[in-house]
């Protein structure tokens, strides 16, 4: 009887308030597993806010929503966060710990073998910075560390907020390849970006936000 698998993301008229200001003003959205979506829109349109909602990092103020099987209104947001890979505007690690130590912490916390760390670091091109403490990294290197952290995650739902910013050319190419792998592996990816994605092969669905709502949806 069940014809389609349930969507990973299902929002209905989702509203999020912060300090009396509506960050999201009624979003309807369905995303299936293994899809890639790009969220665009002017500055202040609500892209970051949408990603934070999907990651269980802010609470829903109105409407309904389910993400990865967790009800945003009444469910356990911690459950949701466990299944989400998050890459924010700014790097997000313990500044006093080195690249290796940060990743070891993440691997242990997730119950992954620490043997996966070295390959992940090599993949993002930080081998020669592996013992540098996070606060000494350059902007792009921090972003790469964030990607390595994500590689360890193997999350079901990837939420990437302007991942291209401050990555160099080589980094962007690598990133596109990574996205391809991830989507092929069955994970759902939502990316916010101001430029279209590099690689034409990815063919994402593009959602345009404006004023906290979705005003365009092209696949």
């Amino acid at each position, binding site marked *: 009887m069940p014809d389609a698998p349930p969507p990973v993301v299902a929002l209905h008229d989702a509203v999020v308030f912060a300090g009396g200001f509506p960050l999201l003003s009624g979003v309807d959205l369905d995303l299936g597993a293994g899809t890639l979506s790009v969220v665009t829109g002017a500055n202040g349109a609500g892209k970051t806010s949408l990603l934070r909602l999907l990651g269980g*990092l802010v609470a829903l103020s109105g409407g309904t929503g389910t993400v990865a099987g967790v009800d945003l209104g009444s469910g356990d947001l911690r459950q949701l*966060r*466990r299944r989400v890979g998050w890459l924010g505007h700014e790097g*997000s*690690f313990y*500044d*006093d710990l080195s690249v290796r130590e940060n990743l070891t*912490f*993440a691997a242990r916390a997730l119950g992954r073998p620490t043997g996966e760390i070295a390959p992940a670091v090599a993949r993002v091109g930080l081998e020669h910075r592996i013992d540098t*403490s996070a606060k000494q990294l350059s902007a792009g290197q921090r972003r790469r560390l964030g990607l390595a952290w994500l590689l360890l995650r193997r999350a079901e739902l990837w939420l990437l907020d302007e991942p291209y910013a401050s990555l160099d050319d080589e980094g962007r190419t690598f990133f596109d390849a990574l996205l391809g792998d991830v989507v092929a592996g069955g994970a759902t990816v939502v990316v916010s970006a101001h430029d279209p994605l590099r690689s034409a092969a990815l063919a994402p669905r593009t959602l345009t936000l404006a004023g906290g709502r979705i005003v365009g949806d092209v696949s």
Partner: protein
Amino acid sequence: MIRTALLVAGKDLRIELRSRVLLWQVVPFGVMALLLCGLALGPAHAGNSPAGPGLFYLVTLLVTLLMINRSQAVERTSGTRSSVATLGLDPAGVFLGKALALAVELWVTGLVLLAGAVLVLHTALHGALVALPSIAVTLGALAAAGTLYGALTAGGDGSATLLPVLALPAFAPLLIAGERSFSAALHGGALWEWWVIAAVALVAYLAVGILLYGVLEES
């Protein structure tokens, strides 16, 4: 839970080792405060003074407040919060781990301060040794309570100033219990009563923390 606790405690202690804040700053602060308190009491009062235990715990309180701030600040540099939140660590484990790390730091500082009290305030060495287990328990309870209150106040504006307001009333009974049992160790008297109070407080704060830490963590 225990695994998470050890992981978190290890991470906190490693950051501490890396930055050496304890060694170079907190401990000298404690010694300085002890000296000033001694001076304030004046020559008449010094010399195995009955104020010894009180001063010891007063200074410990100040040191604890500093260390709680530090323990929470580590978790919220730039973007650490979102990333670590999406690791979905068991909050009970996080609580236990942070409390454990804080307790270890307090024990180390406590030993130094105790040595200072013996040398400088002429607290009887034998009495101090007898008091050692009760001090360990009291500092443990302080660490548990401190972690709880630290989480309660963390993140908001000026949390460094909010913490003492909320925590002081909770710490006061602990300090009184510790002071009494230390005095009893020095001058003879019912040792057990106060010992038991501190132990009960320790267990109570641990239980509350394990149950409620998740609620305190920001959404």
